[in-house]
């Protein structure tokens, strides 16, 4: 594709996004909850669009299409299981929201630290987020690098692509904190959903229609439509990919922190339902892109280039191709800037604040803002190392973050969960996952994605049973008084100990 089209598209995107980010400012956010949570007063629609943009990133449009190109229909199953996992918001969303409102939490790790009455738990959860989310941000940056270099035949280099994405993420985070991030996210999500559906329709039409396209695949490579398919999605691999992603909505702080933000539970409900509708469309469109690229360009050496190749092809009019390309760039940026804000709030509140730093809200905000570019540069360095398969690295991050899940579930459903149990499960689980990845990621034939959660759950339960809750632990607003009018799970599990 003509490089000047791409450069023009990026320029227009930057100008419009800056205007939107600037307009989104509402006074000057001088508190942690103002800057990082939008004063807990975000409406359902903006929350939903932003939640979609934060979750569905470069991974979705590039990684999932690439995964489909390489492994066939199993990629759809993987993403649908993740998608079903977002239902955890229906269970945990109101609990996070109520606890956040009651105690004024800014980060999920702060919530865990308070619930278990232990600064160490907050610090451990915070550091786990930092360790695993920085590589995840790097994955998004790599996505932009692949996309821009793929679409311009290398005229825009991989490195230039990741530098552009990093710079934009820093700027959007700085203009108005979460407000500018959420409004630019929403703009991106709306443009993207329309443009990506149009691309899918045009490409499928170009390949003779939906039935013809799938007919071609069934004739030439039927295993692409079968499970386990051409080899990638054995049941063990499928399990290893899906288990960590199933818990994404509560294990990843950049999305679970969003549960503190809606103005009320109706806004939370609206956020989840609109997000699910968006997510389902994104998922199916990305998989169709992958199949279409497979039919049109069956000999690509690098599956992650499936999307870029498709967008630069004759099947897609240049203006639409550039629109979607800019949309994907914006998707990566919208994921990174949310992660930047979350990690900087986690660092300021949970690490710095608990390790002897100032407890003053304004001072922590200043530290948080200072950390934003530092984290960005770290992600940039990771991305510059050019990892090969975007999806696999992304899942490594999820396998690491999933170790906080037992402590989160225990916080709301088991009054017997203790600080030592939570600490052991987070630290022990994270060390276990890292050890797995360093030693070939296979134990009894299973990978860290499958084993990380059972290992951290076991640690949480066993250590909790042999230790006592600290005097500072809090159950009010969590286990006992979490209003649960329909009585789901809570009373029975709450009485386990």
């Amino acid at each position, binding site marked *: 594709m003509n490089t000047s089209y791409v450069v023009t598209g990026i320029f227009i995107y930057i100008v419009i996004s800056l205007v939107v980010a600037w307009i989104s400012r509402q006074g000057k956010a001088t508190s942690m909850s103002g800057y990082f949570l939008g004063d807990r007063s975000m409406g359902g629609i903006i929350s939903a669009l932003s939640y979609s943009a934060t979750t569905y990133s470069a991974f979705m449009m590039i990684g999932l299409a690439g995964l489909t190109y390489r492994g066939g229909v199993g990629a759809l199953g993987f993403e*649908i299981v993740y998608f*079903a996992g*977002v239902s955890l918001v*229906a269970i945990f969303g109101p609990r996070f929201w109520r606890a956040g409102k009651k105690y004024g939490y800014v980060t999920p790790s702060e919530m865990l630290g308070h619930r278990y009455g232990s600064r160490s738990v907050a610090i451990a959860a915070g550091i786990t987020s930092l360790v695993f989310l920085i590589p995840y941000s790097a994955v998004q940056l790599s996505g932009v690098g692949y996309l821009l270099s793929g679409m311009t035949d290398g005229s825009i280099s991989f490195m230039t692509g990741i530098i552009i994405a990093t710079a934009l993420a820093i700027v959007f985070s700085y203009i108005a904190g979460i407000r500018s991030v959420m409004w630019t996210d929403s703009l991106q999500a709306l443009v993207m959903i329309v443009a990506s559906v149009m691309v899918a329709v045009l490409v499928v039409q170009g390949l003779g229609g939906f*039935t013809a396209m799938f007919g071609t695949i069934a004739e030439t490579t039927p295993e692409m*439509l*079968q499970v386990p398919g051409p080899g990638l999605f054995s049941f063990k691999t499928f399990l290893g990919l899906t288990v960590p992603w199933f818990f994404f909505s509560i294990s990843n702080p950049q999305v679970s922190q969003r549960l503190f933000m809606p103005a009320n539970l109706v806004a939370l409900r609206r956020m989840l339902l609109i997000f*699910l509708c968006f997510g389902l469309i994104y998922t199916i469109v990305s998989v169709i892109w992958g199949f279409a690229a497979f039919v049109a360009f069956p000999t690509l050496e690098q599956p992650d280039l499936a999307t870029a190749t498709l967008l630069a092809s004759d099947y897609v009019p240049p203006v639409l191709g550039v629109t979607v390309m800019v949309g994907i760039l914006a998707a990566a940026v919208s994921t990174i800037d949310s992660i930047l804000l979350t990690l900087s709030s986690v660092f300021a509140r949970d690490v710095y604040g608990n390790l002897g730093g100032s407890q003053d809200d304004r001072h922590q905000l200043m530290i948080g803002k200072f950390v934003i570019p530092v984290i960005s540069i770290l992600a940039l360095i990771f991305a510059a190392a050019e990892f090969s398969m975007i999806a696999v690295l992304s899942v490594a991050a999820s396998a690491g973050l999933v170790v906080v899940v037992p402590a989160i579930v225990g916080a709301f459903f088991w009054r017997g969960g203790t600080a030592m149990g939570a600490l052991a499960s987070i630290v022990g689980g994270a060390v276990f996952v890292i050890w797995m990845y360093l030693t070939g990621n296979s134990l009894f034939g299973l990978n860290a994605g499958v084993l990380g959660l059972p290992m951290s759950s076991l640690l949480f339960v066993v250590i909790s049973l042999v230790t006592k809750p600290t005097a500072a632990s809090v159950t009010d607003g969590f286990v006992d008084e979490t209003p649960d009018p*329909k009585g*789901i799970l809570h009373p029975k599990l709450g009485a386990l100990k």
Partner: protein
Amino acid sequence: MLRKIALLLIGVVIIACYALPYLFIGQIAAWTGSFLFWCLAGVAIVLLNAAAMAGFTEDDR
């Protein structure tokens, strides 16, 4: 009650997302096999979540 049933059915759909393609319909080499099933499972998840959260109100009662 609606919330309870909806959450239980979400669990059933999730188990089916593993079991059906890997045990029963995985060998169908057409879009009407696993592709269609997982798409429909996605639609079911949206509808069941709508049902599970139908009781949420602004005043948190």
